[in-house]
């Protein structure tokens, strides 16, 4: 019998019933909800008089609509958003579901707070009504986003009717050069394979470059794998991930930890496991990447010129590139380096963790935010914010002229009052540069936290490696 991939092992260990050749009833270990993709699911439950059988395996968070002004207590001014938050609390109270509410000191972005408190563990299936649930692949857990109908299904059954994905392996060898991060690596990969290059696949990342990544960096990588269309991302558990989990999951005592370690050691693809697709990348050639267009695959090394639409592979890609350049206000052949930005946004489930803020602080130390730039730092969670304050990062950033804000999804998708004005150009550590994502007619350039910090202090898109040399 041929070996099995890690993905297959995770699916098989969570299959309650095989429904047909392509679909299983998949058991969910943890289901995470937010205020905006869950209301209609709870309404559906009420309509059918259905109950939640496993409330202890559900978690809810107010994160997408919450304002991030540095005020206490936080007040949601927008009436519709305030109603969403109240509605979530009412639904959680009704069903006995744990909630990180608006003014909980540990509130934050769902994909930041669950790992930091040890809730994401190897071998789990984690579902959430949010596409960036792929983040949890960093732990060797199968995480993926679901729609609201499926949120209702998980609430009512603790399972999901799950269509099997195909297996892709992306092996990354070598080491990322100084000045580059896993954000640059994933932008590099997406720019090569396209925004649908992993569509239909769960991607397992392997190789020396992946093994060398911290948990924060792995989360960034897996988080953005969805931007290549993937249905999931995975990194097999190792000492890095197991250590991270056991340090935080205080409910796992010593004897349970021993059993868990034994079980987690099995969570790897067998040597002869078949993959439907295999790709290999060299980390050592990765440069700081920046997006030039309106899809995450429209990314180039910061030193490169913006491509000519005429060079696109086909008519559709050409039309897309022309539209993107028109929207983003760039000419073919122009350079991103030196391009002025009016806004800088540092945060999100992609890059709002403590390691990201440390990287920002390292670049900013001894500098000021450039005149004419509004630079916001939105920590991913209350715990990240507190940690950064304890380390002196907050004071350093405030002194440099950054806004030091309260946690939330904020300007990653601009559902709250943090948004770009039309035409404003933003260096952003987020995950999507879609038209209008950060505000109508706003212009988003995705990049790493260090690159965003460099843009903040120079006022323009800058190669952070050269900044280091000049200092």
């Amino acid at each position, binding site marked *: 019998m041929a070996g099995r991939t890690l993905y297959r092992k995770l699916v098989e260990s969570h299959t309650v019933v095989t429904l047909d050749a392509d679909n299983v009833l998949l058991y969910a270990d943890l289901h995470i909800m937010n205020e905006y993709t869950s209301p209609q699911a709870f309404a559906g439950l009420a309509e059918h008089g259905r109950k939640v059988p496993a409330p202890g*395996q559900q978690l809810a968070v107010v994160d997408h609509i919450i304002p991030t002004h540095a005020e206490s207590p936080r007040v949601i001014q927008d009436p519709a958003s305030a109603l969403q938050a109240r509605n979530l609390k009412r639904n959680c109270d009704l069903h006995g579901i744990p909630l990180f509410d608006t003014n909980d000191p540990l509130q934050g972005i769902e994909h930041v707070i669950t790992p930091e408190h040890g809730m994401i563990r190897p071998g789990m299936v984690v579902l959430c009504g949010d596409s960036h649930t792929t983040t949890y692949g960093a732990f060797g857990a199968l995480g993926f986003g679901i729609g609201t109908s499926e949120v209702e299904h998980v609430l009512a059954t603790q399972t999901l009717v799950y269509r099997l994905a195909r297996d892709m392996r992306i092996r990354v060898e070598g080491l990322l050069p100084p000045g580059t991060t896993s954000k640059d690596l994933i932008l590099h990969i997406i720019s090569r394979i396209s925004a649908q290059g992993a569509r239909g696949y769960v991607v397992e990342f392997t190789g020396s470059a992946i093994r060398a990544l911290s948990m924060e960096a792995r989360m960034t990588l897996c988080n953005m794998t969805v931007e290549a269309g993937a249905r999931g991302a995975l990194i097999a558990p190792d000492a890095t991930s197991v250590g991270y989990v056991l340090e935080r999951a205080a*409910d796992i005592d010593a004897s349970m930890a021993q059993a868990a370690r034994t079980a987690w050691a099995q969570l790897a693809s067998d040597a002869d496991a078949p993959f439907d697709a295999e790709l290999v990348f060299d980390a050592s050639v990765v440069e700081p990447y920046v997006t030039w267009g309106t899809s995450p695959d429209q990314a180039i090394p910061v030193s490169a010129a913006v491509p000519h639409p005429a060079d696109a592979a086909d008519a559709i890609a050409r039309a897309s590139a022309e539209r993107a350049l028109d929207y983003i206000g760039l000419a073919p052949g122009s350079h991103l380096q030196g391009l002025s930005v009016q806004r800088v946004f540092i945060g999100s489930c992609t890059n709002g963790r403590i390691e990201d803020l440390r990287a920002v602080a390292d670049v900013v130390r001894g500098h000021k935010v450039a005149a004419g730039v509004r630079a916001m730092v939105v920590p991913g969670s209350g715990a990240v914010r507190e940690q950064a304050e304890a380390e002196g990062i907050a004071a350093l950033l405030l002194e440099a002229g950054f806004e030091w804000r309260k946690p939330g999804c904020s300007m990653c998708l601009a559902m709250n009052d943090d948004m770009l004005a039309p035409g404003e150009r933003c260096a952003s550590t987020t995950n999507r540069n879609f038209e209008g994502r950060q505000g109508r007619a706003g212009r988003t350039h995705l990049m790493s936290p260090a690159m965003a910090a460099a843009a903040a202090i120079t006022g323009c898109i800058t190669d952070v490696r050269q900044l280091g040399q000049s200092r």
Partner: protein
Amino acid sequence: MSAFTLIEGIGAPLPLPNLDTDQIMPKQFLRGIDKAGLDRGLLYDMRFDEHGEPRPDFVLNQPAWRDTRVLVAGPNFGCGSSREHAVWGLQQYGIRAVIAPSFGEIFYSNAMNNRLLLVMLPQAQVDVLMRAAANPAAPASIRIDLDTMTVAAGDFTAPFTMSARHLDMFRRGLDIIGMSLTHADAIAAFAGRHHAANPWLRDVAATTMARLAG
């Protein structure tokens, strides 16, 4: 023949690749606790200018496409955010089906769960339909027949496939949750075995929150 075995109506061309759900249903329409009013938000920034006035040059705002029922779209339609509001908005606007070379994965599941028909055809065939739909003098009426599993417009006919499960879901409007609940005993038995073997996975949310609350 029912509304869920035959879909026929004006097709409108949306040739862009990677038309994401942020564009299909922008953020400002996601603040509700029900599904109402999403027809207004559909493709909002494409349909309306900064003053909220309809953009006369956008295809859906032109008289010929006023009664559009089928979108003919580019690859990876519905990529990005999981927001099911994108599907609800398409349906509330009157869209019954979308034809494209490929779809975002979460969007695909969301559409099937709401009986919005998604038809995948090879790019070359989508191109033919796109040209037919783009004729302002007489945009193509597109006919999708789920008995014969064909898409037709004028002289053009093409077969398409979808999984038996999705076809059944679309045609019969199944109560998926109700069907899964018939497995309730199997789910409970599974959970018992699963947690006995992996005690560190039991009630992780409740256990952690209790710990954090001190």
